């Protein structure tokens, strides 16, 4: 065992603003990343299942799988783009823990990078050989769910591998006592072996599928409201999405406590309860938003075309995910605070050298993006009349 914990000192250049500013920015951008990342990972897992059902001859599953494969490339791109910002803020706030864990994972990260490149192109491969939304014509693989299933399984396994690496890196960054392996600093870790390593990963993946289920509900409503899908098709899509939400969110009711009890005792009390702000937000959302989400989803399954139930489930899920993001950060803060008290009092306190003008420039760019993006997104969501579904009477594709 190491004679002392080798935590590097904070960067001498310090923080360019009070830590709270970065904490807020990290939460906001991480929330967006989680929503899209879950849409991609969970969406691919669901698409695999839909492709398998399509292979067995289930036509509505075939249609929905094709739609999902059209949406997932953009979702993947957004997941990466929104992931860059929290990655930046994590390095600003917790650089000495992040870089050390990162270096110890070493080649595993390079493998994750390769997996991302191959997986991303696999996702595009299915999209481009499927229905071509741009040209509004059937793709070469529309009636070949077997090919889609094969490629989507490869992409999904790669995405699951990337999720594993991210989860293990995060766990390793919280456990400096696991930086050493026996009598060496073993570089190229694949499994940290902390009690939370596996529960956390399973919790993340199950949550991803639940959130992707809600994206399917949103897709169903979006197409229904624009007259792209008839009532039966929309009913199938929305009901399936809400089923996924109900089952997976229900599974989280089991996985949540498993993850909670895998945390250190002191951390557990700070994450679940009212001792800390992050813990309080999570505890409140757990007992309010999660039941609302489940109730909305269950009612929505019975009456899928009643918008209020989907809205209730979506609202409940959004608040639950916000609570999760707060809990995620509280776990980190509690672990690192415990480390500081035990091993290096005062060491993790970086200096603050504010850069007000630079911060204003960033804020201006951020506001500019917030103004421009809704405008161009509104332009693109207006559909040409050629894409609208016939009023009635046309059978399901």
């Amino acid at each position, binding site marked *: 065992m190491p*004679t002392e914990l080798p935590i590097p000192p904070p960067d001498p250049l310090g923080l360019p603003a009070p830590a709270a500013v970065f904490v807020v920015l990290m939460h906001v951008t991480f929330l967006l990343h989680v929503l899209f990342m879950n849409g991609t990972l969970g969406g691919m897992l669901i698409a695999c299942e839909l492709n398998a059902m399509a292979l067995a001859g289930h036509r509505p599953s075939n249609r929905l799988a094709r739609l999902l494969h059209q949406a997932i490339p953009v979702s993947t791109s957004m997941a990466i783009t929104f992931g860059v910002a929290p990655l930046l803020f994590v390095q600003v706030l917790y650089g000495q823990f992040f870089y050390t864990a990162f270096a110890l994972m070493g080649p595993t990260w390079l493998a994750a990078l390769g997996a991302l490149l191959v997986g991303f192109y696999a996702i595009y491969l299915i999209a481009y050989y499927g229905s071509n939304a741009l040209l509004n014509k059937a793709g070469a693989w529309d009636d070949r769910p077997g090919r889609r299933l094969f490629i989507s399984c490869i992409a999904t396994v790669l995405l699951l591998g990337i999720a594993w690496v991210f989860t293990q890196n995060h766990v390793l960054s919280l456990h400096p006592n696991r930086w050493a392996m026996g009598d060496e600093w073993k570089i190229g870790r694949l499994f940290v072996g902390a009690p939370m390593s596996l529960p956390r990963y399973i919790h993340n993946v199950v949550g991803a599928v639940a959130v992707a289920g809600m994206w399917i509900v949103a897709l169903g409503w979006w197409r229904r409201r624009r007259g792209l899908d008839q009532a039966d098709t929309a009913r199938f899509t929305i009901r399936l999405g809400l089923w996924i939400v109900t089952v997976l969110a229900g599974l989280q009711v089991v996985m949540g406590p498993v993850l909670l009890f895998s945390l250190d005792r002191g951390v557990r009390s700070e994450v679940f309860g009212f001792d800390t702000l992050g813990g309080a937000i999570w505890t409140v959302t757990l007992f309010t938003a999660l039941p609302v989400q489940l109730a909305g989803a269950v009612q929505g399954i019975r009456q899928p075309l009643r918008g209020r139930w989907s809205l209730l489930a979506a609202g409940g899920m959004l608040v639950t995910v916000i609570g999760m993001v707060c809990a995620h950060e509280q776990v980190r803060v509690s672990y690192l605070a415990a480390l500081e008290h035990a091993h290096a009092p005062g060491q993790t306190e970086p200096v603050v050298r504010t850069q007000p003008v630079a911060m204003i420039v960033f804020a201006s760019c951020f506001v500019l993006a917030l103004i421009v993006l809704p405008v161009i997104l509104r332009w693109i969501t207006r559909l040409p009349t050629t894409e609208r579904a016939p009023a009635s009477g046309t059978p399901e594709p």
Partner: protein
Amino acid sequence: MHYPQFTCPPLGGGILIAIVAITHVVIAHYAVGAGIFLAVTQTLARRRGDELLLRFLRDQAKFLVLFSFVAGVVTGVGIWFCISLVSPQATSALIHQFAWGWAAEWCFFLLEIIAGYVYYYGWDRLTGRQHLAVAWIYAVSAYLSLVLINGIISFMLTPGGWNQVIANPDYDGDLAFWTGLLNPSFWPSVLLRTISCLALAGIFVAIIVNLSRSYRRGERRRIINHASWFLVPLGLMVPLAVWYFLTLPQEARSLPLGDAIAMTLFLAFGLVSSVLIGGYAYFALVRNRRDITLETALLLLGVAVIATGSMEFVREGIRKPYVIYSHLYSNQIPATDEWRQRLESEGVLAHARFARPPTVSLEDLPDLPLHVQGRYVFNAECRACHEIGGTNDIVPLIGEAPRAWLDETLRHLHDIKYYMPPFLGTEQERRALVEYQYRLAHPQEFETPTAGGANVPDAD
């Protein structure tokens, strides 16, 4: 120094960064240049009612999404991963000093990606004016993203007055930020990169139009002739490179101008290749309106990649022995007087915790054989660039040198070879490193006979 040393045998961290970085630079420069190409060409095509160019822009947008938005984005994340692995201390410094710069760049990156998708999916949905507006939003945000990143990258070589600013314990954060970002080589570097972006966009047009079978020969030639204008500014590479070199520190400037022949050659390759492509574009494509085939276009791309790679290699190479000029050495040891004094009195192994095994404490060190201590010093000071048995292997560099020569070299390492960081540590650590290096180069002297008669190297 404070972090575990990631190594990537047999390539070495430097080569790994170079591979990912050059790939990313080519794709990212293309993405920026393609944005300007899209916006300018669409403006002209709409004004002239040129349906051919508009049709081509649609193909170009598809290529942009498939190439830049996948490979470009992933290698962009990849270069961040690689520098975090190989140079965590430097990455941390860049992140902390320029956090708001990175954050502002992210805003433009977000705009760029979303505008790119809206542009691609918007051909049948947006009005002509909306589509053109989105093209310009993409072009401007991609370019501003490049400008900000350029400021941070050029800072690493020419921090200008930044080192003086932060030398004051109560320095102004904003002053440090802007002094570093708008550093001496900022403007020439922006212009050089702009030319590179435009040229790559022009070359990729020739590739895309040749890959598509939907254009007749005359159409293809017209599109290529239009795009070739974007290659012509390559002729400005030489005067801009001169301006760029005038902004560099004297020691950095002297390396490619004769002090390091490899750098000189790479610089010559980069400049000559660029000017040749620019000249070819002007005389063959613009003036004489020649056509080019896919093979020629790929050849031009190959030459452009070599030129880009050469210039990036020179920029990285002349920064040695620093990773951030006069602030941090390439072995992640701070280049300040304060740290030099600390390391000479306390020793590098007191700070480089990951250089010795977890079970070896500082108190244990004196009891260990000298060459074992030396191996730990090697991990702390040398291993960032020298991988035993891999790239830049230290063993052939040592050769048959005796201990006295090694010791003398370590004492004056930076003076003998400017691009090497000085050895910073105690006398004992230097002696230990000499012993370790000597044993590496002379293993036969330390082999011990086994019972069976075979010789095995002395175990560490």
